[in-house]
């Protein structure tokens, strides 16, 4: 049984996965922090420790994500779009459209029956359209991002932000709190804002069911629900949505073999 390593060096977190052939066997996740190189090295050391393996036991590795260039020691690199497609396909072979809510941008991609990306669209780099918006507002409301989704589901009437900028959105949230707006409504407002941006991307790529949501944003049950409501279709979410690109990278490593 061969071992493959995939690492996704994202703007917020660095995720690394070791597979036993195609099976996701071990993973580790740490904040990318300021230096992608140190982060990726640390993440790899950690996951190897977990797996009780040495770097030599790994047949092939692939790096992806916006920090991949900073981890040239890994050798092979490829687009996080391909990796995401691969990872999702292995988890849900029936999925044809993938929504990836990342820390810096959101992506929508179409996937074929072999896990290849056939069409894709990436959002502009504006925090208001990415997972970051939710983190910012959660921090303002002094809510752990993990609980934000659940709380938001309580919302009866989500607010409509008067601005399309995450920074102004932050101040707006603060003064709404001061005016007594319930936190859940403020959170739900963010999710709606992001859901609109997602469906615009989907409109351009074209929606084909089944549809999955991955990336850190998919951990937010509220965002998943409101996106489903907007699209009017169910969304599949893998157990570890934030690992999909790293997992896919390992699968690509398996295809490519040692460099």
């Amino acid at each position, binding site marked *: 049984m061969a071992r493959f390593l995939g690492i996704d060096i994202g703007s917020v977190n660095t995720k690394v996965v070791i597979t036993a052939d195609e099976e996701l066997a071990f993973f580790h996740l740490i904040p990318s922090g300021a230096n992608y190189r140190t982060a990726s090295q640390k993440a790899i050391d950690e996951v190897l420790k977990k797996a009780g393996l040495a770097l030599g036991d790994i047949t092939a590795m692939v790096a992806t994500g916006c920090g991949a260039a900073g981890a040239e020691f890994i050798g092979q690199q490829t687009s996080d*779009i391909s990796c995401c497609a691969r990872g999702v396909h292995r988890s849900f072979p029936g999925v044809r459209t993938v929504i990836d809510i990342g820390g810096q941008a959101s992506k929508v*991609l179409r996937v*074929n029956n072999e896990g*290849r990306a056939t*069409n894709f669209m*990436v959002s502009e780099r504006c925090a208001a359209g990415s997972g970051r918006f939710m983190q910012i507002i959660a921090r303002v409301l002094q809510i752990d991002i993990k609980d934000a989704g659940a709380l938001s589901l309580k919302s009866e009437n989500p607010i409509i932000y008067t601005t399309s900028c995450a920074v102004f959105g932050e101040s707006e949230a603060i003064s709404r709190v001061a005016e007594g707006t319930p936190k859940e409504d403020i959170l739900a407002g963010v999710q709606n804002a992001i859901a609109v941006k997602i469906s615009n991307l989907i409109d351009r790529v074209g929606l084909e069911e089944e549809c999955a949501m991955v990336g850190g944003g998919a951990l937010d049950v509220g965002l998943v629900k409101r996106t489903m409501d907007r699209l009017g279709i169910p969304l599949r979410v893998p157990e570890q949505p934030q690992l999909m690109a790293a997992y896919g990278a390992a699968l690509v490593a398996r295809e490519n073999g040692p460099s």
Partner: protein
Amino acid sequence: MAEEKKKRAITRLESSALVRPLVNKMYMEGAAAGMEGRPVAWSMVNWWEGDIIMRAMDVTPVYPENYGTVCASDGIAQKYLGVSAAEGFPTHLCGYAQNTLGYSTEMKKAGQVPEGAPMGGMAKPTFMLCSEGFCDARYKWFQSLRQFWNVPVWTLPFPHPAYADLSLQDVHKVNVEYMAVELKGFIEFLEKLLGKKLDRDKLKMMLDNQEKVFKVWWDINELRKARPGPMHARDFWTMMVPCYYLAYDPETLAVYQQVYNEVKTRVEAGISAVPEEKYRLIFSELPPWHSLGFFDKLAERGWNFVTESPGYHPPPPMELNGGGDLLQRIARWTYWSYVNTGYRAAKMGYPTVGGAQPYYNWALEYKIDGILTHPLVTCRTATFWLTHSMNVLRDKLDIPGMSIQGDIVDLTVFDAATALNQAPAFEESMEHFRQVRKSKGLDW
């Protein structure tokens, strides 16, 4: 060192080097005419209609659109765009227009060619010539230039018949006649303005040359259908200017004939423009002039851009009938350069419409694996059909498309890094659709 290697990824045509002098000559003529007080016209790309007549009357045209690309690669365009905005022009207007409006403001202020204007600047116009062709927002642009240059503006009409009409020869007759009558008006306007008569023999000589240039330029593009692709889009972009502006000029013909010979030799020897042709692509719309090295990086991955936006190509061999009167001949070519694709679409039963039709045809003829579109944020005309074109290629021919945003003048829009990051994913799409085409019995 790495830079060096990248530079070599695309094998450029040796003969394309012969083109640069022609372009320089064009700019030097313009500057000289200005200094010697000879008549200078600010002219739009007018699709071989007005230029040849101006040339026959010894007017030296200068081309604000082309000057926009010059200012863009020089970097000074950013400044002119700011000045244009300061004059109150919306920033969503055509980048070339904003550049010219800014340039004109500066030139008017300075009373001469403004400090730092590249290629000797554009001399003050004696008059300005608009064309409605292809992008009819352009005549609004020259109209607004009048607040800087109190000189006459002449607009050449350019019929844009409906798709449904395109099979009707009598519609074409009406349209060409209208254009010819207006050309007559243009000549009268010039003769009055310049106080001299048009030399028709000279005009005829130039027109004959122009038609020969169309032919050889067209033949070059036919050769490019060979596998592997012998000539990369980069060579086309280097060489397209003379065909636009100097088709009347025997030198242009001579140079293009050399290009033809070189491409032909390559085809016969099976020489490819890129190291290893893995993917044949169309590049759609004007390239990011400032970072053409981008194409070498893609060439290293085996991407060969075997052709590019048909809109910048010469008209195909004439299929419209009509009289041999000089003005009608001129008008017919200009008109044909616009309607030929729709004319062909009509014959094919409209597989698509508008700007998408030529892509459809060429995708088949060049056996294209993918289309890379470059939407230009301030050029609606160029951008309008790109989405539709990508849809049609994907839905009707199973050819995928990828899109990178850019602009004709604002160099900051184009993000090569992101595009290169997405390249592997797009290669997957191209591979995927290759399988689909095979399964449908298509031969590439």
